């Protein structure tokens, strides 16, 4: 009981989703064609960017600009943003609410019967792969520099994991995500992409 009360009060503090969405700045007009008016994403044109932290969005724009994230469609879009505009679009998309999900807390389930959920909640330490939720948060809800994966488009999750493997996505601190993506098999990537996309 006590645990529940704490969880609820802390959720209020931790989830920016409860605050009001900001009005759209002019600089974000360009983005909506591919990411949707509130950043909800349009598959397969652009991933969901709503509800990512402002810190993460700004960092990714910088990575596209520096060529550490290579993508022929998004890179030129990032180039249109400088200075204050980066903060504006980042805060705008970060303020967009996402549907709430029922959190799965570590330990709620003792054993999983297929590989994707096992990787997500427990990892595979024999290969030095930690549970995805350790960094991405309970149910991969995301926060700070760790993007939300729950409910993201499966095709996008897959292309990102492959981008790390081929070296077209870099820039994460000490390659912490790269080193994990590099250990995943093609079958695991497919399974993870559809499992994570389905967390609603």
């Amino acid at each position, binding site marked *: 009981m*006590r*645990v529940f009360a*704490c*969880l609820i*009060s*802390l*959720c209020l*503090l*931790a*989830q920016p989703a409860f605050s009001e969405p900001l009005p759209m700045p002019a600089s974000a007009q360009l983005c909506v064609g591919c990411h949707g008016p509130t950043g909800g994403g349009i598959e397969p044109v652009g991933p969901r960017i709503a509800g990512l932290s402002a810190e993460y969005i700004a960092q990714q724009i910088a990575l596209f600009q520096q060529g550490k994230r290579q993508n022929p469609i998004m890179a030129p879009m990032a180039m249109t943003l400088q200075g204050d505009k980066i903060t504006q679009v980042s805060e705008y998309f970060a303020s967009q609410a996402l549907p709430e999900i029922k*959190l799965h*807390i*570590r*330990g*709620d389930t*003792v*054993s999983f*019967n297929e590989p994707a959920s096992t990787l997500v909640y*427990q*990892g595979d*330490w024999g290969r*030095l*792969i*930690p549970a995805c*939720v*350790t*960094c*991405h*948060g*309970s149910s991969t*809800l*995301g*926060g*700070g*520099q*760790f993007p939300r994966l729950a409910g993201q488009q499966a095709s996008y999750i897959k292309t990102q994991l492959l981008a790390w493997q081929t070296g077209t996505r870099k820039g994460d*601190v*000490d*390659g*912490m995500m*790269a*080193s*994990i993506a590099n250990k995943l098999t093609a079958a695991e990537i497919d399974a993870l992409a559809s499992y994570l996309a389905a967390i609603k």
Partner: protein
Amino acid sequence: MNKVILWSVPLLLLSSVSIQGVSEALPDKQAELFTSPKKPTDSYLPVRSLASIPKGEFGDKVRMGYQLFVNTQQLRGQYVGNELNCSNCHMDAGRKANASPLWAAYLAYPAYRKKNDKVNSYQERLQGCFTYSMNGQAPDNDSPELIALSAYSYWLAMGGLMDQYQVAGEVPELSDKALVLGGKRDDFSLPEAIASAMTMDERAKLAGRGFPAIPKPELAYSPERGAEVYKAHCQACHGDNGQGLAIAGIYSLPPLWGPDSFNWGAGMHRVNTAANFIYENMPFGKSITLTNQQAWDVAAYVTSKERPQDPRLTNKGVADLAKQYHQHQGYYGKAVDNGPMLGSKAYPVNPDK
């Protein structure tokens, strides 16, 4: 800030005298483990998949032990007084070799301790981690929590031994009374194939136990240099002030110092223990490896920050306690960088959330 500290002192006295309910001073249950360096030839006990935990009452205890170990926060306010889970230090739910795995620990108790001239059972060792690493108040002897954590440890140890020596079948069940003692005793029943392969003392020193000892640093360890290592390789996850990161109120990136981390009595507050742990296990997921010197320096940085009080503190004060219990590589009772003496502004033990 000051207020917290002022009322934390009487609260501490209270907790060490009456809440703990022991007449003698709290024993040093976090006494340093014997550590040895890692050898390239080491091979580790296999671990069974959690899916193979048997159905039934015994299996339920094992499952409960696992759940308490990875989500110790369900005991917050009862036995836990910080934001940590056991699995934050005993990684992969207590199964990872060289991250103080439970399968190796279980076979090393009861253990004789010089310090308090006493034989410590496994459950007493578990209690030590609640009092210090979890900054809480340990569950009573033979409580369901200690039985469950013992059952999980026993199941990992015995299952591993059985698989290593090709003994078929389920892990034999033990009574609650036997579970909490640990596996280093003459009357601990073992299949013949295992008993004849290793002596009891060999089983108590399995490769992968504890955190492997790393060589002494080339230069004396320095919190100042450690701060640079911290910024570059740790801060992304543990925060600019060691506070960790909570997502939706749940910490999976744990606090390293401050009010929500382990207290001054915990094994991890020693520079050498932290250095051994960090070198082997951090940065998390090991995308890079620190040098030996970096591991010592960053360990010194992390352990030279204020944290919850050592619950053994009496009205004789910090300096006295430092003399009695802190004659090792650590910063309790010392001042760093012209700051106040560490321990003098410590945070409360087992606070309400």
